[in-house]
């Protein structure tokens, strides 16, 4: 599903590569944690998957497509198959929960009848039933992140990228967020989550890929965050 082959990325005006000859394979339906300290290259990895950045060398395949050959014109179609969740939620403050989720479908031109049908289903899936008409500022951080996940998942993407989704949320609420991610993963969606949260990684017992200074230092199935190798 995601295939990195010897990928190197150096940002302009920087000597040290953000990613240094990275090779990873993520299969369909996998749940992978991407861990490592700040600046280790986690966000760069996610941006490369979205083709927001281009690698300096190496090949990237996402959902069966060679990103180097993907024209700019086709990039939006790639992004429709990838859902994204961020630390800062990125909701539209002037739209309510339903409208925020529906927005993701409206802007890719889905018919209204389809939107009316699927949006309530997804809102229920993330556990926000009955809150569809709340505004984002009336919701807790955990609830806002659930809205963001509903928006990322509403178009049934093949891959869900989560960049520190629990970074702004207390540990108790984070468990609920992880349950939603797990539920999404069980529908067959590949989940790739970058995180600092050791407790969460340890409790989930999923595959862990650890980056340090742009290099992969560990790739372990059913792994934990740090100490045990």
């Amino acid at each position, binding site marked *: 599903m995601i295939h990195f082959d010897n990928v190197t990325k150096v940002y302009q005006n920087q000597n040290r590569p953000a990613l240094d000859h990275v090779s990873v394979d993520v299969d369909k339906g996998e749940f992978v944690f991407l861990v490592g300290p700040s600046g280790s290259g986690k966000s760069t990895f996610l941006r490369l998957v979205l083709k927001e950045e281009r690698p300096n060398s190496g090949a990237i395949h996402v959902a069966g497509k060679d990103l180097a050959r993907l024209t700019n014109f086709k990039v*939006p179609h790639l992004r429709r198959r990838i859902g994204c969740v961020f630390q800062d939620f*990125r909701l*539209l403050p002037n739209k309510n929960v339903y409208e925020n989720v529906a927005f*993701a479908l409206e*802007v*890719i031109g*889905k*018919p209204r009848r389809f939107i009316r049908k699927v949006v309530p289903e997804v809102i229920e899936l993330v556990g926000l039933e009955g809150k569809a008409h709340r505004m984002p500022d009336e919701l807790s951080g955990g609830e806002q992140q659930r809205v963001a996940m509903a928006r990322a998942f509403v178009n049934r993407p093949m891959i869900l990228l989560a960049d520190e989704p629990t970074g702004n949320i207390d540990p108790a609420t984070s468990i609920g967020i992880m349950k939603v991610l797990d539920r999404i993963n069980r529908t067959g969606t590949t989940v790739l989550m970058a995180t600092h949260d050791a407790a969460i990684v340890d409790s989930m017992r999923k595959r862990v890929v650890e980056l340090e200074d742009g290099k992969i230092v560990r790739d372990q199935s059913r792994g934990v965050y740090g100490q045990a190798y």
Partner: protein
Amino acid sequence: MRANFIFSEVWIGLRRNLTMTIAVIVTVAVGMALLGVGLMINSQVTSMTGYWTDKVELSVYLCKKDSAFESCKDKGAISQEQKNALQATIKEMPEVESVEFEDAAKALENFKISENNRTLAAIVKVEDMPESFRVKLRDPDKASAIIESIEGQAGVSNIINERDLLENYFGFMNRLQYMALGVAILMVGAATLLIGNTVRLSAYNRRRETGIMRLVGASNVYIQLPFVLEGVIAGLIGGVFAAVLLITTKVLLFEGIQSYMAVPLGWDTVAGVITLTMAVGVIICILASFITLRRYLRV
């Protein structure tokens, strides 16, 4: 669905940037109106030049008794033989199409028709009017050579090329046209910058929305179209105001001029000019929007 969504976005964008939108509309309206006035003057001058070129004649005035002209001094009135000889000479020139003799009575008749000053028209008598040959040329551009060759002939008091009289008027119209076009170019430049700025503000105001649109895979057209349409709508409204200004100009200014100049500026020309200025306005808006979007809305 799609159209609905895009138009609601456009409406929000225009409302949020109301002051800038008004500035764009006014600039486009004034710029396009001036461009249109320039084009209308141009068309008027062209049609009038064509009209008058056919009619322009040389007036070869003949000496009378006690004529004040240098060439007639102390010679008295032109004799009948001289007249006949002169007419024959002129007629034999290859550039001359026809020659007509206008006697004093006819000259007075024409004078009374064209002279607006009634008192003057009333006191002028037949004896005051000069006799003349009206010379029609095959090619009005070669007038100067003919004037030269007739000028020295006996009995000729002076020669007036009617085109010289018109040229003053055409010169004035041309200067007016260039002034209107010059200011129009400045206004178009200002409009382009203003539209660019408006789109930039709009893109900044909606950076959250466009960020999410990119993320969920909205196509570039979908992301950019609302911004471009904002420019187009402002341009169109400006164009409508310009059309109103142009129609006003036609009614107030050109209809006035026409009472002197005989060649009317038709409504079909006005319609053509309005269509052209609107198209120019909208195209400028689209280009300015696209160029700005490429810089401020990375897709």
